[in-house]
């Protein structure tokens, strides 16, 4: 959700900034060119006439209100669910909180997995609940490579003072060709 928020925030900012600029242009144009019929860039007198003919109980007004409400609720939902997914670590005392980011854990796990001679490359995603490793192995890698990697990752996780030990999921893909 943080990715969605990062895309949405600048887009909404650009839209609002554009609306602001248009309003400024129209206000200045109305001052400077009072004889101009209609808006300079936006046909706001025409929009005004359309709006003047609408009533609160019109379907269009109700539909727009419902649409704006739904979009607003979705934005609130995105904002509420886009919290930082920090991993909590065991703190030395009660007046302290110690956290780290999933990225830090993923990097550590990746370094540990790639240290194996039988692994060509690896990608890791980490969260408080789960660490998922996708390793690409050489074609002559031993059959028990997956179990070895799981053990290595679990050994690393026990070394870290994580409050909650995530589950480990390792998948190994064999690469065609010789080493």
């Amino acid at each position, binding site marked *: 959700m943080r990715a969605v928020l990062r895309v949405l925030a600048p887009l909404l900012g650009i839209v609002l900034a554009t609306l602001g600029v248009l309003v400024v242009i129209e206000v200045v144009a109305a001052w400077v060119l009072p004889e101009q019929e209609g808006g300079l860039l936006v046909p706001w007198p025409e929009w005004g006439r359309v709006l003047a003919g609408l009533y609160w109980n019109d379907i269009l007004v109700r539909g727009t209100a419902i649409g704006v409400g739904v979009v607003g609720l979705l934005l609130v939902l995105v904002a509420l669910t886009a919290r930082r997914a*920090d991993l909590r*670590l*065991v*703190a*030395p*005392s009660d*007046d*302290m*909180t*110690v*956290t*780290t*980011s999933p990225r*830090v854990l993923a*990097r*550590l796990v990746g370094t540990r997995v790639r240290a194996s001679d039988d692994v060509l490359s690896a990608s890791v995603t980490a969260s408080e609940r789960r660490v998922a490793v996708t390793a690409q192995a050489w074609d002559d890698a031993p059959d028990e490579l997956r179990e070895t990697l799981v053990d290595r990752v679990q050994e690393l996780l026990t*070394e*870290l*003072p994580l409050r909650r030990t995530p589950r480990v999921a390792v998948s190994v893909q064999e690469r065609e060709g010789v080493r």
Partner: protein
Amino acid sequence: MRAPLAEPAERGRLDIHPGVLRKIVERAADGVPGTLRNERSIAGIDVGEYGASARVTVGTGVPAPVDVRLELTLRYPTAVRVVVEAVQAAVAVELDRLAGHRMRTLAVTVTGLRGPSAPAQARLR
């Protein structure tokens, strides 16, 4: 006739800007063995390095309690808990010694765990 002087303790007051407290916290944290400094680069060009990053909130009271949020890169492998405990002690001592403030809470975010050689070693003076 001149008005009598106020008591010495009431003639003025000392306020320490939170920015100064932040610097004290960051310097104390950087001095703890096990914390590391990071290289700062813009578009791949090395423009120096940075260490711990702190945010300080000063409460009310005498002495004023201080809540600290600290971001650190730590050396790995090392005992994270031991280093964080040492950081807590160092920061509390320096805040008290230099500014007379009491550290109330400390929230540490470990932003990196890495070996000492890559990319920069802790600078201790």
